[in-house]
């Protein structure tokens, strides 16, 4: 009896507590949701979910199903937290043809693929504002390459990958004069063009290079997907503004009943490239690559691009009409169905790859646009999903014949059958979802267990934090017939797209430290005996090491006003999770966070005479507080000798030579 009373009291208390929560979610949360997302202390999540950061310019890695933030990886925005963009090694990553651009707007995550499945090697993400594509190495979770895309504006439609990572496909969001010139904006129809870009990937190192660009009519290229399986070798890109408006697009680009989806045969484009049917054009863009051995990024100036024009290359590009202002363009796991979502349309059009091929073979065209054939809408269409919701944006697949589409305006996720086009289920999201992700949802073999909706509006979902709120993500269980809401979690920046991958495809490759023996940095100090301070005119190079718990040298004298000091810090540790930090008072940049075995450089220009403190910023050991030192700065005309060292080994260059000879003897 006592036990029974106890249990019922608990149940009652729990129901009261639950009642305090959101009314809306109370209707949808069922039974064992907490158990399904609970990852016990010390255990791992089943999936990595990589989310773009939108206006943060970065990406984040979350664990699924827990929704725990594992890491923020800086990509397009400088990051004082670890010195990315501030250290001498990483500054070059931010170079563009516009000079240094320290921020961007990251949108779409694409994981590398082999045979249509995620392989866990690399992650690619686009910079929307100053058109760029970045590569993140998934063994280190570091940004190792950024390629600028020339002659485009707003690289929203990027960087969509092909099934064997042959290419990253992208398109310009805003058409512009090519090459750039001083013309009236009114002359849009006459002067403005759009480019579709193919960036090829070197399969060993992942290095990107701009293979060719296709010159297209001046539309707004929005989103894309590549074919897979039977449709491998083709790309599909939605466009809006076939009206070619240049002002008040919200009205003027929504006049026509249908816009156009571009259908590109890239295998054909490759043939034309081999035949030399391209024109080479002078242009200007940057290619920034981190050297794998030195860890130093270099920015190369690029000056040429190869252009394919549809009029010279028959059979390379087609259009298919899509109802009203399409956004998402998604290909199902079989490669047969292509979903075109018209934002302003009540219905969704699903195209058949076979039917598109048949229409092309039969030249079943409905006119052309600037010479590019427009495939007859009815002939390409497989079927229509009737009135599934309002404002369809993006679709992912579960590998069991179902598609899941987000509806921004009606704020819901709708599950429908790809073959029958029948709506099977709908669940509210809180509120207004943009993208959604299913692990492997873009691949030939999705893992149809979870779905994450990335919502644009948060409102009352969390404790309020002033006018700005974290965007909310919502995790659904999609293993059953009906979708089941499991969890809300806040995200960083504004995630647009995300991709999720089984942890076991990434986890085994995780690098734990850099081998100190393999460090090829020109200013490395492979051991404390290699530490030194060298003057080169007004530049002073400090070859410094860090190990628990001291910096060496930790006393430096002989620096003068007008000098520029470069602290080259090598972390001598060879164990996992032992970074050392380095900061010096008044540095006008940031700190360094140096991984075990790595060398990183902080530039420092003293602005006053005196003795300045420096220290390790990462709590590394019980004696971390002791891990510090001093830099003495003397007046410009002083004759204080350059001396450095620690403990009783503090001395000049001559003293150091003697010490080393003794040690060697």
């Amino acid at each position, binding site marked *: 009896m006592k036990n029974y009373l*106890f249990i019922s009291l608990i149940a009652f*208390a729990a129901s009261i507590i639950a009642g305090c929560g959101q009314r809306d979610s109370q209707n949808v949360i069922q039974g064992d949701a907490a158990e399904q997302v609970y990852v016990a202390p010390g255990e791992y999540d089943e999936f990595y979910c990589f989310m773009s950061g939108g206006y943060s310019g970065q990406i984040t890695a979350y664990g699924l199903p827990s929704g725990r933030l594992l890491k923020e990886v800086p990509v397009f925005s400088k990051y004082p937290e670890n010195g990315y963009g501030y250290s001498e090694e990483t500054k070059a990553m931010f170079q563009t043809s516009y000079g240094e651009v320290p921020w961007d707007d990251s949108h779409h995550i694409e994981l590398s693929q082999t045979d249509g499945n995620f392989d866990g090697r690399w992650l690619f993400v686009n910079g929307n504002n100053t058109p760029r594509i970045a590569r993140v190495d998934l063994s280190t979770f570091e940004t190792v390459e950024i390629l600028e895309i020339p002659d485009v504006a707003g690289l929203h439609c990027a960087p969509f990958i092909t099934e064997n990572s042959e290419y990253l496909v992208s398109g310009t969001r805003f058409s512009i004069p090519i090459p750039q010139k001083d013309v009236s904006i009114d002359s849009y129809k006459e002067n403005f063009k759009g480019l579709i870009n193919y960036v090829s990937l070197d399969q060993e190192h992942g290095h990107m290079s701009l293979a060719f660009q296709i010159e297209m009519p001046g539309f707004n290229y929005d989103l894309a997907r590549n074919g897979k399986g039977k449709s491998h070798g083709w790309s599909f890109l939605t466009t809006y503004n076939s009206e070619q408006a240049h002002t008040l697009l919200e009205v003027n680009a929504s006049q026509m009943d249908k816009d156009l989806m571009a259908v590109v045969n890239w295998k054909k484009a490759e043939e034309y490239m081999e035949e030399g049917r391209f024109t080479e054009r002078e242009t200007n863009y940057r290619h920034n690559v981190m050297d794998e051995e030195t860890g130093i990024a270099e920015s190369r100036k690029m000056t040429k691009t190869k252009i394919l024009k549809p009029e010279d290359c028959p059979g390379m590009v087609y259009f298919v009409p899509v109802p009203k202002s399409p956004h998402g363009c998604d290909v199902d796991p079989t490669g047969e169905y292509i979903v075109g979502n018209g934002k302003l349309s009540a219905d969704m059009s699903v195209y058949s790859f076979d039917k598109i091929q048949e229409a092309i073979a039969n030249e079943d065209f409905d006119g052309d646009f600037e010479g590019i054939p427009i495939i007859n809408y009815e002939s390409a269409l497989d079927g229509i999903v009737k009135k599934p919701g309002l404002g369809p944006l993006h679709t992912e697949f579960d590998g069991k014949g179902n598609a899941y589409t987000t509806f921004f305006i009606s704020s819901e996720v709708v599950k429908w059958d790809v073959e029958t086009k029948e709506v099977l289920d709908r669940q509210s999201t809180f509120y207004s979802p943009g993208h959604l992700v299913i692990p492997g949802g873009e691949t030939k073999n999705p893992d149809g267990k979870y779905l994450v909706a990335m919502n644009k509006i948060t409102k009352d979902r969390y404790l309020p934090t002033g006018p700005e709120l974290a965007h909310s993500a919502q995790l659904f269980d999609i293993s059953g017939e009906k979708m089941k809401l499991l969890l809300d979690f806040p995200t960083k920046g504004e995630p647009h797209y995300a991709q999720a991958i089984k942890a076991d495809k990434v986890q085994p490759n995780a690098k734990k430290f850099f081998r100190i023996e393999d460090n090829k940095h020109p200013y490395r100090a492979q051991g*404390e005996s290699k530490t030194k301070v060298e003057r080169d005119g007004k530049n002073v190079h400090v070859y410094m090491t860090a190990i628990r718990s001291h910096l060496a040298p930790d006393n430096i004298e002989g620096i003068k006003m007008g000098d520029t000091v470069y602290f080259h810090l090598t972390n001598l540790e060879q164990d996992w999770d032992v970074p050392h930090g380095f900061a010096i008072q008044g540095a006008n940049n940031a700190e360094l966070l140096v991984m075990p075995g790595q060398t990183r450089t902080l530039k420092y220009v003293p602005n006053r005479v005196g003795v300045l403190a420096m220290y390790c910023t990462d709590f590394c050991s*019980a004696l971390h507080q002791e891990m510090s030192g001093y830099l003495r700065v003397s007046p410009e005309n002083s004759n204080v000798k350059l001396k450095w060292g620690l403990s009783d080994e503090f001395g000049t260059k001559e003293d150091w030579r003697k010490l080393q000879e003794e040690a060697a003897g």
Partner: protein
Amino acid sequence: MKNLMGILALSILFLIFSCGGSENGGEASSSSSSGSIDESSSAEAATSSKGVGEIKNLNLDDSLNVSMVFKGKQIVDMKCASCHKLTDKRVVGPGFEGVTNRRQPEWIMNMITNTDVMLAEDPTAQKLLEECLTRMPNQGLSVGDARDVLEFLRQNDEAKLGKRDEAYQEG
């Protein structure tokens, strides 16, 4: 009545949370007491332990292998010399001088290659940690690297003290 029930239920919930907390705490403290420190052993004194790790029994040649000494010196220079000097002076860790006379070669190699376990389980290593206060880091040396380092340490003892391997027990 409803309010009363609510308050009652909440206080029961509170009890449950506090129970859970103390149970976990109990478990944690019992597991941390597993590696006890042997108060009687002095860290710098000679010990007869071979330590904990994969190096069980080592056979040392009486003569030194010059190329191993050379390789060992390079490794020490890169990965060890920040904390261990070649003299008997303690900086972060103890000086290397005389180490092969105090410690069995197996102990030395286990300390290098199995650092975290040694610090958790070996009484001598724990005593040294108490004195030095900085955990010796795992510097990622292979067994082969550690053997080279040992050879260099033998050579260092011979050069500094004229005697080496006094803690070595054959077989």
